[in-house]
Every structure is written in C-alpha cells, then in structure tokens.
C-alpha cells in the first residue's frame, strides 16, 4: 500500500522517464521546444525583475492576425508534449487535492478524453490547412468571444509574474513558494467553504508546479497554472455561493477539469502562455527594485 506522496513520486518518475524518451526521439535536433515557445518564455529574468529583449513584441498584434498565427504555431509545437503531460498533470492535481484514488480515476477519464479530442484536433488541423482563412476567421471569432466573456476568469498580472518566476528559478523550494503566493492571490478566501478547501488547492497547484518543472521542456507551462487556478477558484467560489458543499473530491474534480481544459488543448495552452507572458511583462517592466 503506497501513501499519496510515494504514488505521486512514482508518477513523476514515470512521467520523467516517458517524457525524456519523447524528448530524445522527437526533439533531438531541436533546442528546447523551438523558437515559438522560447518567445513565449522570453520575458523577464527573475533575479532583478529586469525585462529582457522582445518586450512589446505582441503589444499591437495581440488581438490581430499575427497573434493567431503565433498561437497556432506554438500550439502545433506544444501538441506532442501536451499529449504526454496533460493526463499526468490531471492525475497529480487530483491526487494532491482529493487523494490518490480520486487522482487515478480522473487520470483515466482524462486519458480517454484526450484520445477522443486528439482526433477532433487532428481533423481541425487538417481542415485548417485546407482552408486556412476560413478557419482563422472562425477561430478568431471564438477566441475573441472567449476573451470578451466576463464569465471566464483571468488571473491578475501579478499572479502571472509570480508564476513566471516559479517557472524560471533554479530552486524547487523557491518555485513552490512563488506557486503558493500566486495561488493565494487568485483563490478567493471569503467563504467558509473556500477556507476549508484552501490548503488543498495550494497543495494542488504546488504538485502541478513540481510536475511541470521536472523537465526543462515542460517548465514554461508552469505559466499556465494561474489560469487553471483562477478558473477552478471561480467555479468553486460560485458553487460555494450557491450553498453547495465543496468536498475535497469536488475540488479535485474541478481543478483537474480545468487542468485538462488548458493542458489538454494545445490552442488553449498556447493562447494562455502568450497572454501570461504579456501580463507578466506589465508588472515586471516598471519595477526595478534593487538592493
């Protein structure tokens, strides 16, 4: 009988092995994940909160056609990575919040869904190449609609900046401290129901950070966690406001579902990464505090 932590460690090792193999086979000739992801990750150096080159690259084109091309290009590169990491991430989040049993169940569902959605994604991409313009306009409409929708939670810029620091620092413990901090910025704590579940949500995001930081290739994906946490926090807070019970199992399911929505969808991940980098720049640019 394994305890939760041992199971999580085993999962992480398993993921690491699998992932290392993937990296060697598929990305042997590529440094990191290619230029697109580097663009997304190229924002600020953590130590001095100093902005680096490439600032403002997306400022004007954020909502334009060029931005969608960047999202698409990044999504294409992210796809094979996400196929491997998403089910693991769902399992880790589920286990950290709801216990190992909940994590395993959620992971199985995630794997099943990922097989189904993979086909959909492939067909979407095929049609995209057939009629790119048509696809872009359809996608642009959906994309803008999602962004304009007030019901979808977006984390604040400071949380994005802290997540960026968590993805860049060398020390695992320091990364976890930043993770705890951005989670606390995001998750509402006013209701008793949320207070009960709060430490488990912190544990969930911490476990997710740990998993994504395991490989340099997945490390930039840490920047997607504030979005996952914000959406999960919003859903749980809404349920709490309706007087519904928030059990650890409920919280695990909601958080795992949001993890799946972001990491299980290359377009959503790419869009989140680019938006996160832009938001983080807003915070880090003016602040140049030095000792």
């Amino acid at each position, binding site marked *: 009988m394994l305890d939760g*932590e041992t199971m999580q460690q085993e999962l992480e090792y398993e993921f690491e092995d699998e992932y290392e193999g993937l990296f060697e086979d598929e990305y042997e000739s590529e440094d990191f994940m290619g230029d697109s992801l580097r663009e997304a990750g190229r924002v600020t150096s953590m*130590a*001095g*909160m100093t902005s680096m080159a490439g600032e403002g690259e997306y400022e004007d084109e954020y909502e334009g056609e060029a931005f969608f091309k960047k999202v698409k290009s990044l999504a294409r590169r992210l796809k094979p990575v996400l196929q491997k990491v998403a089910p693991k991430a769902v399992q880790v989040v589920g286990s950290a919040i*709801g*216990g190992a049993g909940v994590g395993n169940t959620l992971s199985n569902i995630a794997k099943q869904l990922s097989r189904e959605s993979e086909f959909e994604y492939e067909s979407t991409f095929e049609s995209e190449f057939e009629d790119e313009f048509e696809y872009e306009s359809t996608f642009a409409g959906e994309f803008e609609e999602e962004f304009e929708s007030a019901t979808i939670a977006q984390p604040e810029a*400071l949380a994005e900046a*802290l997540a960026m*620091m968590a993805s860049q620092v*060398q*020390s*695992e*413990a*320091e990364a*976890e*401290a*930043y*993770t*705890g*901090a951005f*989670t*606390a*910025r995001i998750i509402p*704590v*006013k*209701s*008793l*129901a949320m*207070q*009960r579940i*709060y*430490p*488990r949500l*912190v*544990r969930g*995001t*911490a476990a997710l*950070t*740990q998993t994504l930081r395991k490989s340099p290739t997945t490390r930039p994906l840490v920047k997607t966690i504030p979005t996952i946490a914000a959406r999960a926090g919003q859903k749980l807070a809404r349920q*709490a*406001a*309706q*007087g*519904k*019970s*928030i*059990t*650890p*199992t409920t919280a695990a399911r909601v958080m795992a579902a949001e993890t799946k929505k972001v990491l299980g969808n290359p377009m959503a991940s790419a869009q989140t990464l680019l938006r996160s980098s832009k938001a983080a720049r807003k915070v880090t640019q003016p*602040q140049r*505090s*030095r*000792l």
Partner: protein
Amino acid sequence: MFEYEYEFETGLDREGECEFSSEYESDQFLPLLAPVLASAAPAAIKAIGGLFRRRRRRRAQREFELEIPMGEYEDEYESEFEYEGEYEADPFIGSLLQGLGGALGLNESEFELELEGEFEGMPGASEYEVMMEHLAYQASQSESEAEAEAFLGALVPLAARLIPSAAKAITSVAPSIIQGVARVGRTLYRSPTSRKLIRTLPTVLKGTTRTLARQVSQGKPLSSKTALRALAGNVATVLDDPKKAQRAMRNCHRAQHRVRTMSQRPTSSMPSNSMSNRRKRRPAMA
C-alpha cells in the same frame, strides 16, 4: 451525506494534535522553547541576510562578466560567507545578530508587535489572519520541504491584504518578502526541533506588514532592502523572545482548531468574518 464524506476525507490535520494544545499554555513550555529559539533565531536572520549577499555577488558577477550557475554552488558560498564578513552584507542584519539574546539594540516601537488583544481569542480575526495561521500550521506539518514552501509563500499575499491602504505598496515588494520567508521557512523546517517554529511566521509577517505600512504612511519608498530588513527585524522580535514566540504558536494552534471546527460543520457560503467588521474594531496601521 456530504458532511460525512467531507469529515471522512478531510485530512487537514492529523489525529492526536490536540494533545499538544495545553503545551502552549503551560509555563513549563518556555524553558523548553528558549534553547530552540537561541539557535533558530540567528539561523533565520542569517538566512534573510543571505539574500543581501547573494544579490551583491550577482552584481559583482555582472561587473566581471562571470557566469557561474549560482544554484549549484549556493550552499558552498553560503557556508563560506557564514564566517567571512557576515556583517558586511548589510549592517542592519549585523546589528540584529549582535543584538540577539535579550539585548536587542532595536527601537522597540519600530518592531513591536501587537500580539495582545482580540486575536488571542480568535473571535475578531479576519479570514486572512485565520487562513495565514492555518497555512503555517499545515507548513509545519508538511511531509516535504517544497510543500511547506508552497504554504509559506501563500502567507505573503494574505498578509498584504491585512492593511488595504498599504496593500499596493507591499505587493510591489512581495517577491522579496516571499524569498525571505521561503528561506526562513527552509531553515526552520530542516531541523525537527525548530520545525514547529514555522507557526510563528504568520505573526512575523503581520508585524512586517505593519512595519512596511508605517513606512508607506510616512512617505518612505519601499524597496527590496527595506522589505527584507523589516522581515528580519520582525523575525528577531518574535524569535528572540520566548513569550512572544509561545503566543504566536498558540495563535496558530487556535486557528487550526477553528478551521477544524468549521470543517465539521455543514457547509455555509456565508462570509466568515468580514474585513469591514475587522477594520471597525482595529484602526488601520497607516
């Protein structure tokens, strides 16, 4: 059904913790706490001081264009600097270290904590304060250092919200405070004897927030340096005084009981303690 499910599944605190609840009330606890504090307090302050040294080294590296991966050699450098000019990095840290042991050379009013009063009994504590104490308790019980760090990192944004008038300014130096708290937490976590002292960190952070809020109200700009100094000063104030440390740990323990009691009640979406009520009772520091 859900209530029982929650009770069954909740594992936020371990069975048997309550047997220690009288520990914090007893006078016999102080003599046991004092030697632990005597070694933990300087270690915690040095951990914050390490951040000053690290940044100085980074600046020097930039000047000479050296590219040494610091993470790899960090511990080595730490031990080296432990003995060579450890007061050079920041004179304030040096004076704190020299003043430990009851002869603290600080202006008491600057770092004096407001531990007395309503929070002792928890009824007027805001949800942020209760959650800070609860998270610190979880950190002290964590099975891994990384998990403990996550809980401690979460304390900083909650502390910043305690004084809304200064929240923006304090948030601007949040990364430095997070780094400082993480280092103090790591130092305390590594020894099983000092691990329980992690429960004093919410008190330390609340004091730090008040110190920084006072500076903001006086029109002084906040920087990483002032934030780390305020943190180190408050660490010294709490950990150099067994009575204050005991009180801080007692607050943490009570908050834990309060959250546990809440978990055993049916779910309610009602806000627990509104900040507005809290503010009415206690005037803002600013």
